[in-house]
Each structure stands twice: as structure tokens, then as C-alpha cells.
């Protein structure tokens, strides 16, 4: 509860900050302060300090899984702000509002990670989406940004419609006529056609939100068009939030009907892996490549949805943390660059050795090389599927996809280290490189001692 209220309040504060604070840097500093407060109150809630006593009539339910995800999401946003706050403020003329919108999105994420009824799920997803439509188009003079925003709005509205329809179906199919997710499929050995239809609709809608193939077509265009820091936020924190909602819905409501929907998710995962990885190979811009790579990673995360076992829950948190850290780091560098093509990275190792080193660690993590968080994340996902004893074909397929991903991630490393070239001039401060190195160290720590993160799932005072 702490996070939901505080993030909304912070959003309002940020909205008016533009009136009182004239300098971009002070607004950025205020935003960083705000996100630190938000992170702190969430950690305190995990430790048993509740600041607000709001009776939600059971519509919201806070558990370690959701709260820990919130911590990861807020920490990711903190990393984003530390690296790119100035770039966010410099998107347009209203710096305070961009931060305000981000805080509103975080509020939506806090709801989406703790919903207990379908209504709260819907509200959470919408609070996430609407500020994002604005953020995507916030670079008003850029035609691509406007196009991305419109595209995102139209397709997003469509998927929202599907979700509402799905919710209506599920409501109709539930015996008690209830929106509560634990009562949706109660006492049903097999899904009725109505329930199945509702489930499919809501799956489609959520697949759209996490950009799983074949509902991913918006993602590359929107990610490419949106201002880079916003893309970074959308591809990591927001995507994680939507995915947590996905996991919570299936894990709490439909886990008993697993056998009936598992095959859909398996196909979804396979298609996402294939399309994401293969299309990423052909990209000429690193930004677009990362967009497809984010699609590919959703393919791996869907393994958790497929299995819904302990390994999957632990793995989801680790995956989102490792993936977000690496992706935010790479986008942070991209945000400083003008040329987003692979050639833009040529010779970077010579000009900016620290940046190149950090970027290499991020790329290795995304590719799933041991000693980085990305490896253990992939490990958890593969192990969780293998534990079920089925879907070995999916595991083998994912291996080949992981091998393909080496190609496009290493292209960047090759450009940085092995290609000669007068790279572009980047305006990076010492602080930026410092925080980037810290983020890289976190990625490695996640790969060596994931324990301290995963243990948080089980240490809780609520």
C-alpha cells in the first residue's frame, strides 16, 4: 500500500515541480530523491512498516512476490534516473511532467503487482498504459515519436478492449459471479467454453502488453520512435510490471486448469523466441535490435508462466532484475549517442574504455554468459521447464535461439573492440560512467550471488 499512495503523491509533486523549480537539474534531483523515497517505503513495507491503513475489501493483496518485484522495478527506475535523468528532462519543455508521468506508471505497476480482482488488474494496466501513450509522444517535434505514440495508443486501446471483454466473460463464467481471481475457476475440473474464451482474450491482451509474438508488432516501432530514456523505461520496468500481472493472474486463478492452457503458452513462447531472435539479427540499428531482443527475452520469461512452479517464481524476479539492469545500462549509453546504428559503436573501446567495458558486461548478460545475472536467469527458466518433465522441445528450441542471440549481441562488442573507427563524441560525465560501472557490478553480483535477492521472497514480515 505504501508504494501505491506514495508514488501517486510523488507524481502530483513532480507535476507541480516545474512551477517552483526552474532548472532542469534540480527537477531531476527531486525525481531521484522521490524514487529513493519510493524504494525505501517499499522496502519498509516488506519489513513490516505499513504507513497507511486502507481497507481495500480484499481487492488488493500484498505478498512478498509482488513487493519484491516492486522493489526491483523501483530500483530499475532509480538506475534509469541516475543515468538518464538529465536526458529525460531534456526531452521537451516540460521536464516535471515527464517525471510525473513516470511516477504515475509506477503507481500502476504497484497496483498490477498486487491485484486480487480483475477490476484492479484492469485499473493497474490502464494506469500503466495511459501515461505511457503520452510519454511515447513527448518528443513533440519528432515525427517518429508522434507516429509511435499514435500507433501505441490505437493498438493499446484495442488490446484494452479485448481485456475488458475477457474480464466480462470470466465474470460470467465464474460460479459465484465474482471478480476475485481466486474464485474465478474454483471447483472446475475442466474449463467451460465461456471461461476458455475469456482466458484466451485476456491472454491475448496481456501478451500484447508484454509484446509476445505474434502480438509484438507495435514494440519495435514504438521503442524506436519513443525518446530513448522512455524506451528504456518501457522495455524494462513497464514490461516487467505487465509480466508480473500475467504471472499473478495465471498463478492464482488458473493454475488448476494448467493442462488446458499450457500448450497455448508454450506456442506463444516458441513463437516469441523465434521471431524475436531471428528478426533481431537483421536490424541495422542497435535501438531496434534491443527492441527485438526485448521481445526475445519475453520468450524466455514466458517459460515461467508455462510452469508456475517455485523455480519459475524465483526465476521471474531474477530474470526481470538481470534483464532490466543490462537493458537500462545499454539504453543509457544509447541515449547519449546520436547515431544508433552498429557503426556508431565502432572504436568505442578506445575512446571510452569504461563505457565499453560496462556495455560488454551488459551484452554478455543479455546473451546469457555465466558469471552474469543473465545466465542464472536463463538457467532458472530452463530448469523450471525441465522440472515439469514436458516441453523438452521448447528447451532445445530456446538453446538455438540463445545461440542466435550471440550473433547480434556480439556484433556490438565486435564494433566496440575490434573495429577501427572514430566513434562519435559522447557527452558523458564522470558520474555517468561511475553509475554505469556500478550497474555492471550489480549485473555480475546477480550472477554470482543471486541468493540475497531470491531469499527476499521468503523473508517477510507482513
Amino acid at each position, binding site marked *: 500500500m505504501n508504494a501505491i499512495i506514495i508514488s501517486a503523491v510523488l507524481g502530483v509533486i513532480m507535476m507541480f515541480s516545474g512551477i517552483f523549480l526552474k532548472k532542469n537539474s534540480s527537477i531531476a534531483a527531486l525525481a531521484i530523491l522521490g524514487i529513493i523515497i519510493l524504494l525505501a517505503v517499499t522496502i519498509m513495507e516488506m519489513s513490516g512498516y505499513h504507513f497507511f491503513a486502507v481497507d481495500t475489501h480484499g481487492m488488493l493483496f500484498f505478498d512478498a512476490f509482488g513487493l519484491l518485484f516492486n522493489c526491483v522495478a523501483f530500483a530499475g527506475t532509480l538506475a534509469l534516473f541516475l543515468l538518464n535523468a538529465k536526458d529525460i528532462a531534456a526531452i521537451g519543455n516540460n521536464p516535471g511532467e515527464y517525471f510525473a508521468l513516470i511516477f504515475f506508471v509506477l503507481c500502476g505497476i504497484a497496483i498490477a503487482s498486487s491485484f486480487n480482482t480483475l477490476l484492479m488488474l484492469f485499473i493497474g494496466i490502464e494506469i500503466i498504459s495511459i501515461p505511457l501513450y503520452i510519454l511515447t509522444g513527448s518528443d513533440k517535434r519528432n515525427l517518429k515519436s508522434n507516429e509511435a505514440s499514435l500507433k501505441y495508443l490505437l493498438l493499446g486501446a484495442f488490446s484494452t478492449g479485448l481485456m475488458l471483454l475477457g474480464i466480462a466473460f470470466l465474470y460470467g463464467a465464474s460460479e459465484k459471479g465474482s471478480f476475485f481471481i481466486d474464485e474465478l475457476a474454483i471447483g472446475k475440473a475442466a474449463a467451460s467454453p465461456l471461461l476458455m474464451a475469456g482466458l484466451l482474450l485476456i491472454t491475448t491482451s496481456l501478451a500484447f502488453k508484454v509484446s509476445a509474438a505474434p502480438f509484438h508488432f507495435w514494440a519495435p516501432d514504438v521503442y524506436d520512435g519513443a525518446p530513448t530514456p522512455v524506451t528504456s523505461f518501457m522495455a524494462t520496468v513497464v514490461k516487467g510490471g505487465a509480466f508480473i500481472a500475467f504471472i499473478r493472474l495465471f498463478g492464482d486463478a488458473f493454475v488448476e486448469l494448467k493442462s488446458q492452457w499450457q500448450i497455448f503458452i508454450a506456442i506463444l513462447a516458441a513463437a516469441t523466441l523465434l521471431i524475436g531472435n531471428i528478426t533481431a539479427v537483421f536490424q541495422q540499428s542497435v535501438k531496434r535490435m534491443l527492441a527485438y531482443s526485448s521481445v526475445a527475452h519475453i520468450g524466455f520469461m514466458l517459460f515461467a508462466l508455462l510452469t508456475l512452479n517455485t523455480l519459475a517464481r524465483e526465476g521471474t524476479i531474477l530474470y526481470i532484475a538481470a534483464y532490466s539492469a543490462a537493458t537500462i545500462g545499454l539504453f543509457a549509453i544509447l541515449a547519449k549517442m546520436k547515431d544508433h546504428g552498429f557503426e556508431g559503436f565502432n572504436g568505442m573501446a578506445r575512446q571510452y574504455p569504461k563505457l565499453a567495458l560496462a556495455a560488454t558486461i551488459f551484452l554478455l548478460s543479455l546473451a546469457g*554468459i*555465466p558469471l552474469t545475472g543473465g545466465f542464472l536467469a536463463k538457467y532458472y527458466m530452463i*530448469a523450471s521447464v*525441465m522440472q515439469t518433465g514436458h516441453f523438452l522441445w521448447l528447451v532445445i528450441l530456446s538453446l538455438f535461439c*540463445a545461440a542466435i542471440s550471440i550473433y547480434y549481441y556480439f556484433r556490438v562488442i565486435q564494433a566496440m573492440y575490434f573495429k577501427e573507427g572514430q566513434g562519435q563524441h559522447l557527452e558523458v560525465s564522470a558520474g555517468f560512467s561511475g553509475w554505469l560501472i556500478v550497474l555492471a557490478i550489480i549485473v555480475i553480483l546477480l550472477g554470482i550471488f543471486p541468493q540475497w535477492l531470491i531469499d527476499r521472497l521468503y523473508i517477510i514480515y507482513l
Partner: protein
Amino acid sequence: MIPVLLIVVPLLAGLISFNLKDASAKGWTLFASLVTLGITLIAVALPEGSKQLAVNAEWLTALNSRFSLNVDGLAKILCLLTALSFPIIFIATWNEQYKKARNFFGLMMLSQAGLIGVFLASDALLFYFFWELALIPVYFLASQWGGEKKVQATFKFFVYTFLGSLMMLVAIIFISQHTRDHSFSIASFYGLKGMISAHDQTWLFWLMFVAFAVKMPVFPFHTWQPDTYEQSTPAVTMVLSGIMVKMGLYGIMRWLAPVLPIGTYLWGDAVSTLCIIGIIYASLIALRQDDLKRLVAYSSIAHVGLMCMAIFATTESGIQGVMIQLFNHGINILGLWIVVYLIEKQFHTRKISELGGLAAKAPGLTLLLLIVTLGNIALPLTNGFIGEFLMFNGIYTSQSTTYNVVFMVTAAISIILAAMYMLNMVQRVFYGPVNALTEKAVDIRLNEKMVLGFIAVLIILIGIYPEPLFHLTKDAVESVLAKMYVKP
């Protein structure tokens, strides 16, 4: 404590080297590699099973994986090879000038840490970690320093090995989920005893074997090797072929054959056939090679194929031969690469057809090369003979195949072919008329003489008195063999 030092010393030395000046990195890493050698010698001297040789600490408790290292006979011989090779490589290539030398030497030390980790790990997940950790520095080494096509060649190598390791990872996960305590420890892996059905073992075998086969490499997974060896800078080629190749053979002996005995037994003939094809094929190509580097590369494929075959023979003499040959082949191939490097440095060509008559101009080099060559073609009284003789004996007496005579005879052809291409090379490069290029040849320098002399002495010494190597690996041979499936 000692196993941790063996990994941490090169690791820290490598990390420190990144922050040194280019000029001082060379000396620093040589010093660090000598320290590592010292620690290895202590480890080798300690009796097996002593407390100092094992480490077992908590690590990924959620996954049931522990940080456990253990030094047994097999690990000792490979650590010794690794620890010995690095100073040899550094001294032999002492006069080489590298761009960004500190990075070069730092990465070299990191790869040493990874390699030693691979040989010591007694937890499957930890093994996998080190397996990849050894690969990453080598990837950067081979892509940054070397020939024109280095980036493409190394990338091919990387993708091959990465896909192989991922397959191994799936097998490791599957096996660990079937162990009694769902752990990754080698004891649980060895304690499986029939808990994985023969049917599962058949496909698990290939998942693991491909990872090891790519590293060795065994036909048809070898296509990365000649390109990578040719394009890499000499020091890296030496690491790749002297030590990294052994990771595959080691993996089979430690993690494949004892863990999946039925799968190993069922596919033994198929693997041996692949090895035979590889041996003959590589030998024939080596015979026709004009490029010295490619010649040595193909000769390595042939030798390693024979070693792989000898493991699957499942006999005491075969496995004993492999363990000894792991060390001997490492030393011999190192010697060959050093000679190739010295020739290329002096004449800026590797074409056999452009060289000739070196013997008259460089008698020191010629003598030492001759000894290395004789070791490589396994002449009696050289180290190669002991290992290959045992392996042939093992293949011939094998109970696990009905084709042992066929395997033995076809493999024996490889010895003849090896003699042909090696001696042919010696003759054309070192004897015959002196041409314009070799007219001004000078003999090798002191440091080069020292390392080649050292290698030559080792070759003859082991050839005459191989007892210490037997003694070192005796227990390991028995423990591997005890877990393999032998037809009653």
C-alpha cells in the same frame, strides 16, 4: 585452500595486469604464472585425499550447488600442464610486441584461472561456470590480436562452443534433477547408478558429447579449428591447442563416461567411428598442407581423435594412455607451435614451399624441432610413444566393441600418416637447398632455446622414465574405469 589459490592467483594477477603499464605487464604476468606453477607443484606433491586439496563451501543454496573444488590425479596432471604451459608460452613469445599489452596479458591470466577452475570443479554447475569463464577471455584474445580474418574466425569458434555448452547445460540440469538430493555435486552425479533410464541416457549422451566434441574437436565438429588456429596470435594458439583442447577430453572422463555409463557404452562405436573418420581425414589433409600452422592444426585433430577413441575403449591401459597423453600431447604441440612461431617471425611466411635448408643456418632450432617431431610421431624413447602405445593396446583389447581390430588397424594407419607428414615437413623446411629467403637465417635466441630445450628434455625424460606420470594418475584411472560400463 590450495585449489582456491590456484584459481585466485591467476585471476587477481589478471585483474591487476589490466591496471598496469603496458611495459610492466609482461614481467608481472610471467611472475604470476611462475607463482601459480609453484602452487601447482605443491599441490602435485601432496598425497591424494589430503585436506588441503579440497574445498567445499556454500554457494548457490537455492539451486543446491556448492563451491566445491577437488584436486585428484586427473586434475593434477592437467593443472600441471596448464601451469607449466603459461610460463613456457610467455618466455617463448617474450620478444613479441603487443598492442595494449596489459590487456593481452590480463586476459591470458584470466583464461588460465578459468582453465584451472574447469579441471578442479567438482560441482557440475561450477564446472559449467568455469567452462564458459575460460572461453570468454580467449574469445577476446583471439579476436583482438591476430590475423586479418580473426574476428570472423573467432566468432565461428565462439558460436560453436557456446551452442555446445548450452546443450551440456540442459543435460546437467536434467541429470541433477534426477539425482537423489537434486544437487550438482559430483558425488551425486556418480551415485546415479541406473536412476536414469537407458533411453534417456542415449540422448543425454549426445547433449554432453557435442559440447566436448566441439572443444576437442572431433569430426564433424572441427571446422572452426584450423581457421581459428591460423588467425590467432601464436600465444593464443598455444593456449587453444595445448590446453583448451584437453577440456573436451577431460570433460568426457570426468563428467560424461562415469555419469552416463550406458549411453557411453551404447554410443561408443559411433563415436569411435567419428574419431576414425576424423583421424584419417585430418591426416590426409595434413599431408597436403603447405601452411605450417594448418598442418599442426590438422595433426592435432588426428591426435586428439585417437585419444577420444581410447577413452571409449573402456580399458585400463586405454584410459591410462589417455591421461598420460593429455600431458604429453600438450607439451609436444606446444613445442611445435613454438617452432612454427619462430619460423614465421623470422621469414614472415608459413609456406613450406617457400622455405628450405634451415638446418645449415639454424642448427639449434633444427635439433630441437627434430626431438619435438619425434615425440609427436610417437617414436620409442619419446613421451609420445608411451601414451600412444598404451592407447593402442587399450583399443585392441577393448571388450566394449566388436570392431576393436578394425579400429586398431585404421588408427594405426594414422601413426604412419603422422610420420609421413611430419617428416615431410621437416625435410622440406630444414633440409634441401637453401633459397634466397633462408639465406640470411639466424639461429634462435637464448630464451627460445631455453624453452624449446626444456620441452625437448621433458619429451625424452618422460619417454625414458614415465613412472611419475603413471604414479600420479593411477588412482584416477581406476576410479574412472570403475564407474564405466564394461560388458561382462
